Structure formats: structure tokens, C-alpha cells
């Protein structure tokens, strides 16, 4: 905990993720560029203001109307600095977009007004995300409605100490990843205005030693409603059967009415009349809720929509189940 306090500066909060250090290096590079330019501009202004302050009514002034060399210099030279900023920022941004392959998935559900975190074990935490130290975590986030007569709205998931932020969209998955480097508890804020309770939509990330993690997340909540404890994927498998998916989808490679679903996650799917798409969580969700949006090449448009019939938990389970099918 002490080390986190030390890394905290006047400008930035403590550094608690792998992104924080590289972010802060770039931040200070731009910051000092800003300071130097500011001092140069305003310093010159003050110098001129004092030096050329009106002395008398017969002051004569310079006929200067420009200086091509100077103007070219200050138009072109700073551009190099801008290119460095852009490229550096680009590099950092890309590293935030691509999670490592061994990342652990956690589902994040934003609602009015709070956060639910669903782990692969089927455990659920409210406003408290528990993660293991030093292991990449991938958040699969969506915004869901709280009651049938209200609507899901935009939120944004922000952890200042990790320097990460991503909007959470209604009925769609967006992805965010990080790796915590400090034990402790860190603020989660919602940064996309979402109404009355926006500023109360505060949570905590709690970073625990990896060996304590499984115990820390077991909240005892049980997804599978027959009373037996089950993982998220097991819950999905059960939903898969109950919703009648096996009538059209095999999970062992045979072609039925619809394509077999094993091995589908992570591959490129050829789509009727469009560019191939990468099968990720958001694609799976869309395939179930809005089957007509993208039709797999060579298959009929016969899959019924499940919009309004599956709960967000069930969708989450189905997605996790399909991901396990190899």
C-alpha cells in the first residue's frame, strides 16, 4: 500500500496497473512540452508588454509585417513533436485494445445505477470487482435494463489508478483489459452521464494475491436454479438445452439447420453479402438476439430471434458456453 502512495503525484493518482507507468511517461512528455511552450509564449508576451509599453505620444513603431523564415519555422518544427505525441499515443492505445491470450474473462453489467461483476465460476459481485494481482483480466461489458419499462443507457467504466476507461453500451459487449500491479482497493467511476444516480455509480476494484482470488470471489450465489452450484458455462449449457438450440445447432461438428457451434469462437466467419467478421462475444450476442443482422454464408435465414426471451444472465451463460466448445 505504501508503494502505491509513493507513486501518486500532484497530477496523477497512484499507479496500479501495467498501463499506468507507460501512460504516465507519455503524460509527462506532453505535459513538459506544454509547459515549455506556454512559458515561451507567455514569457515573450510579458517581455514585449514591458519592453514596448507606450513611452510617449510620439513613439514610433516597427514596420515589421512578417518574417517568412520565422513563420515557416514555427509552422513546421512543432509538427515533429506532434508526430511523436501521436505515434506514442497510438502505441499505448493499441496495447490497451489487444488483451493477452491468457487473460481471465469477467462479465461487467452496468445498470441504473451500479455494477455487477460475474465471474466464470458463476459468482456475482455487486459494485466490487475482485481481481488477482499480476494476471491479465479481460472485462466483457454491457449495459442492461433494470426493469422492463425502463431502458438501458450508456455508462463508462473508469478506474483512474489503472488509467483505463471504456464506454459500456446497451445490449452490446465492449471489451477492456488490464493487469493490476498493486494490492489494494481502487475507485471505479462511471464516466458516461447516466442520469440521477450517475455520481453514485461508484465501485471498487479489489486486488488480492492470486492464491486468495478464488476464495475471495465465491459469494455463494448460484446461477443454476436447480440448486446445484454451477459455473457460468454450465449454466449456459443448461440454457442452451432449455432454449431449444440443439434442434438446429450441433456442438460436435455436424451441420444441422444451423452451423455447428464448436470452434466457432475466435474464428473468422464468412458473412452473406459482407466482409468476414471475427467471432467475438459481441458477435455471438448479436447472432442470438438479432440473427438476421448477419447471416452465415450458405445457411438459411431461419434462426428465430431470442430478443426479450433470454435474461442478460442467460445470454452471458450462452456466450460463455459457446466459448468453451472446441
Amino acid at each position: 500500500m505504501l508503494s502505491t502512495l509513493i507513486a501518486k503525484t500532484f497530477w496523477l493518482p497512484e499507479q496500479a496497473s501495467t498501463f499506468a507507468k507507460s501512460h504516465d511517461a507519455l503524460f509527462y512528455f506532453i505535459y513538459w512540452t506544454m509547459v515549455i511552450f506556454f512559458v515561451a509564449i507567455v514569457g515573450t508576451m510579458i517581455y514585449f508588454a514591458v519592453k514596448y509599453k507606450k513611452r510617449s505620444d510620439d513613439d514610433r513603431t516597427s514596420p515589421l509585417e512578417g518574417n517568412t523564415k520565422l513563420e515557416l519555422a514555427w509552422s513546421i518544427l512543432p509538427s515533429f513533436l506532434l508526430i511523436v505525441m501521436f505515434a506514442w499515443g497510438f502505441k499505448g492505445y493499441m496495447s490497451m485494445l489487444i488483451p493477452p491470450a491468457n487473460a481471465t474473462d469477467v462479465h461487467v453489467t452496468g445498470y441504473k445505477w451500479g455494477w455487477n461483476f460475474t465471474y466464470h465460476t458463476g459468482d456475482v459481485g455487486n459494485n466490487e470487482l475482485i481481481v488477482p494481482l499480476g494476471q491479465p483480466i479481460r472485462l466483457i461489458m454491457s449495459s442492461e435494463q433494470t426493469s422492463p419499462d425502463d431502458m438501458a443507457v450508456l455508462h463508462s467504466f473508469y478506474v483512474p489508478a489503472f488509467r483505463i476507461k471504456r464506454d459500456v453500451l446497451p445490449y452490446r459487449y465492449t471489451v477492456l483489459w488490464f493487469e493490476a500491479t498493486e494490492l489494494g482497493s481502487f475507485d471505479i467511476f462511471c464516466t458516461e452521464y447516466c442520469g440521477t444516480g450517475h455520481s453514485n455509480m461508484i465501485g471498487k476494484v479489489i486486488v488480492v494475491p492470486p492464491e486468495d482470488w478464488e476464495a475471495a470471489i465465491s459469494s455463494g450465489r448460484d446461477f443454476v436454479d436447480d440448486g446445484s452450484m454451477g459455473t457460468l458455462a454450465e449454466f449456459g449449457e443448461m440454457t442452451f438445452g432449455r432454449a431449444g438450440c440443439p434442434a438446429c445447432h450441433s456442438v460436435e461438428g455436424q451441420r444441422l439447420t444451423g452451423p455447428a457451434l464448436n470452434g466457432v469462437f475466435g474464428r473468422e466467419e464468412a458473412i452473406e453479402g459482407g466482409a468476414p467478421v471475427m467471432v467475438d462475444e459481441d458477435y455471438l450476442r448479436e447472432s442470438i438476439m438479432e440473427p438476421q443482422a448477419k447471416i452465415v454464408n450458405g445457411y438459411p435465414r431461419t434462426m428465430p430471434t431470442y430478443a426479450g426471451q433470454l435474461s442478460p444472465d442467460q445470454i452471458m451463460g450462452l456466450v460463455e458456453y459457446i466459448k468453451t466448445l472446441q
Partner: protein
Amino acid sequence: MSSTAIGADSHGSSGHEEKNYLNATRGLKSWIFTVDHKRIGIMYLGAILTFFLIGGLLAIAVRLELFSPDPVLTKDPSLYNKLFTLHGAIMVFLVLVPSIPASIGNFILPLQLGAKDVAFPKLNLASLWVYCIGALFLIAVILTKAVETGWTFYTPYSKDSASSVVLATLGVFILGFSSIFTGLNFIVTIHKMRAPGMTWRRLPLFVWAMYATSIIQVLATPVIAITMLLMLLERTLGIGIFDPALGGDPVLYQHFFWFYSHPVVYVMILPGFGIISELVTVHSRKNIFGYNAIAISSVSIAIIGFLVWGHHMFVSGQSPLASVIFSALTFFVAVPTAIKVLSWVATMYGGSIRFTTPMMYTFSFLFLFSIGGLTGLLLSTLATDVHLHDTYYVVAHFHYVMMGGTLIAFIGGIFHWWPKMTGKLYNEKWGNISAILVFIGFNITFFSQFVAGTQGMPRRYYTYAEQYQPWQQLSTIGSWVLALGLFTAAGVLLKSIFGGQRSPHNPWGAVSMEWETATPPIEHNFHEQPICEHGPYDFPEIDHTMGPAH
């Protein structure tokens, strides 16, 4: 046109005073139905400053609530949300967008061109009344429909807000029409009604800025109309466009919104640039440094400004490729903006600088706008924007640009042209004091928000984590100093109307054409068509015997 032509009317009808635009006709009707660009400009000025007062009082209320994370003014977060929505909507759509073009622009632009009026005087009057209707409509919608979405009206927010967002956009659209009218008028006026001899190279830079602004107005406003139409279609026919519950895409709305609203940022700032070009030259008695660069950079900012809207959406879920392109394009806007600031500072070189009230506001502008512009670098850079997006850092950044830039230039411009508009002189000492108070108050208010933001405090928060309280308190205290400064400025100007000295014909010794006619101007601006024989900044003090190196 020498700086010592004090007192007498330049056209010297000795004895009795000639009638000016203010007293040529009398009665309320003579104002409401006037087609005189000067009277329209004055009425616009009155309306805009009234809304500025309302928006400012709302800001004071918002800041007061934030003095503590516990309830201060109200226990109801949704009331707080309404307050900042109203503050933002009023300041952006009713104050900043029309501010300089509709008031000072209307008044000064035809005079600077040596024209009798704008090209379409009736359209100009229509613009004013459309503005008033749009303004009342927008405020009524926000109040009665309880819109609390913030000025960006992002969808979806709640089921009930969906319909009111359509109405609020309609309000913005009506207001947009009033600016299209002004924009069209200015474009045609600048093309067709310049005095003989006034080449494009002799246009005051204020006119160039108005020209660039008008182009954006005319091109961008239709987008908000399309947005509104799409929303209406969605509501009435139930086709999913923006609403995810109907299968629409909320990110698409953000694209539409910013496609309009980012160029509008330049509608707000370019006129401020125009004013500063005038102020820094007249009060330094110098020709502008780099006339071409400043004029061209206005136009290029107007064009590039259309291509950067996606920089508001780096974390929104838009495609990463789009984010990368928008980030790169945004850096391109930085270059012409920097050229302007550097040219203004260079203009002061070798001058004879008068510390008049307009010049004090110019210093203030250069200081504050430099901070506003430079802090944008951290936001156009992708990786750092992720951390700073939607925090108080952004709030501070755009207040430094919009208030420290546009509004400070606006106030400086009002002080500069006040004698021209009213025929009265104000108290310079108190004018200077107002500039200093505003400067100090502004920095206390908004610099503290930079720190709260980089430390991670999100915007649009009714309550907040306690580690941010010192910065929030400082900011609130600053807002009182800022208010004191603004009220001082208002007091100085009001006092000059009642009991200020009669202004000489050309108190600043300016040489652009608006000073060639009487002060205040006669109803038809000029007795006969003036001829332009020199550039707008050929001051008599300039020593042409000196080599250009001096």
C-alpha cells in the same frame, strides 16, 4: 484619420449635433422592426448578455453545490443535473455560438467594409427573431420536459427523455437557422459590398474570421436538421436508428451530434480570434505579423474542423481505426491555431503598447487561450485521452478555450467597440481592474479543475469522492472572484451609459473603416461611399523608414 481627431464629428457639420443611429428614430417599434444592422447588433448584444447572466448564475449554483460532496443547495441530484444541463445548453447555444458574430459582427462588419448595411437586412432581422423564438423554445423544453441529459443530449438516457431530446434538438435546429441567416448574410456582404479599393488583402482580420465562421455555420447546421429528422422517424415509425431498444445504435447518434458540434466549436472560437487580431494591432500601434498566415489559418481551421469530430469518441466503442485517424487529424488543427497565437505575440514586437482595457483582455486571452490550446494535446493523444476523457480535465480544457478564449475576446471586443456603439467612454482604471479580477478568478476556478481531472474526478457528478474536495472548493471560491470581475465589467459599462464622458470620434486612433464615420455612426453609416486607400493596420506611428528587421 489621425489619432488626435478628438471630439468633433468628422464630417464637421458645426453647431448642432447630427442624429446618429440611436436617436434617428424613436419608440419601441422603431427597434423591433428595424432593419438597421447596428440596432440589430445592439439588440442581439442585449439578448446574449442577458443569457450570459442567466447561464452564469446557473454556473454559480452548480459550483456552490459542488462545494461539498454532501448536499449544499439541494438534496435532489436530478435538480443538480437540470442546473448543469441548462447552464451548458444556454452557454453553448444561446451565448457562445451567436455571441460575437451576431452582436459585434452585425454591428461592426458592414462598417469595416464601408457598406451601408448587410446584404439582406430583412433576413438579418428575421435572424434575431428566430433566435429569440429558438432560445425561449429550448429553455421551455428543458424546463418543462425536465431534460437532464447535459447539453450533448446523448441518447438513450431514459424512456421519457427520448421525446424531449427530439424537442431539444428542434430548439437547437431553430437556433441554427438564425445563425445560417447571419452566416449567409455575412458571406454575401463580404463578397459584394466591400468599399472600392478594399481588396481581400485589405480586409480586417475580423472580417476574415467572420467569413470562415459563416462558412461553417452554413455547412454544419443542416446536419443537426438531419439528426432531428432521423430521431423523429425513430419516434413516430419505430425504426431503430439511435435507440438500442429498437435495434438502433447510440454511437451513431454521437457521430451525428459531434459532426455538428465539433465544427461549432470553431464557430465559437474563430470570431474570438478575429477580435484579438484587431485588438492586438490597434493597441500596439503595429501592423499584424503574418496577415496571410492568420487569414489562411482561419479558413484551414474551418475546413479541418469538419474532419475531427470523432476525437470525442475515443473510448465510445467506435472502431479503433476511426479513433486513430481522428487523433491524427486533430493534431493538424493544432498547427494553424499555434500559428495564430505566435503571430499575435510577434505583433507586439517593436510596438507602442497601450495598457487599455481591451489590451488587458487581450493579454488575458493570450495567457488563457494558450493554456486551453496546449492542454488539448493531452486529449488528442489517444492513450492519454483514455484516462482524461469525461473528467474535469476536459471541463477545464474547454472552459479555458471557450471562456478564456471566446468570451474574454468578446468582452475585450465590447470594451474596444463600446465607444463606437454607444458614443460613451468608460472608466479605464475600473475597466483594467475588471480584467485583472476576471483573470484571477478564472484561473482559480478552472486551473483547480485540471488537477481534479487528472486525478480522476469524472464530470457531471452531483457528489464525489472526498479526495477531490480541496480542488472543488478552490474552484467554487474562484467562481465568486470571477463573478465579481464580470459584475465589475458590467458596472463599468453601465455607468458609462449614464454619465460617461462623450467619446471622441476615434478614441483608439484606429485606422480600419468603422472609425471613419461618426461615433456613434449615423443611421446609414456613411454620408457617401468611402474609398479604401490603405490596409486596416496602417497606423500613423509606424515608422516606414526603419528597416523591416526592426
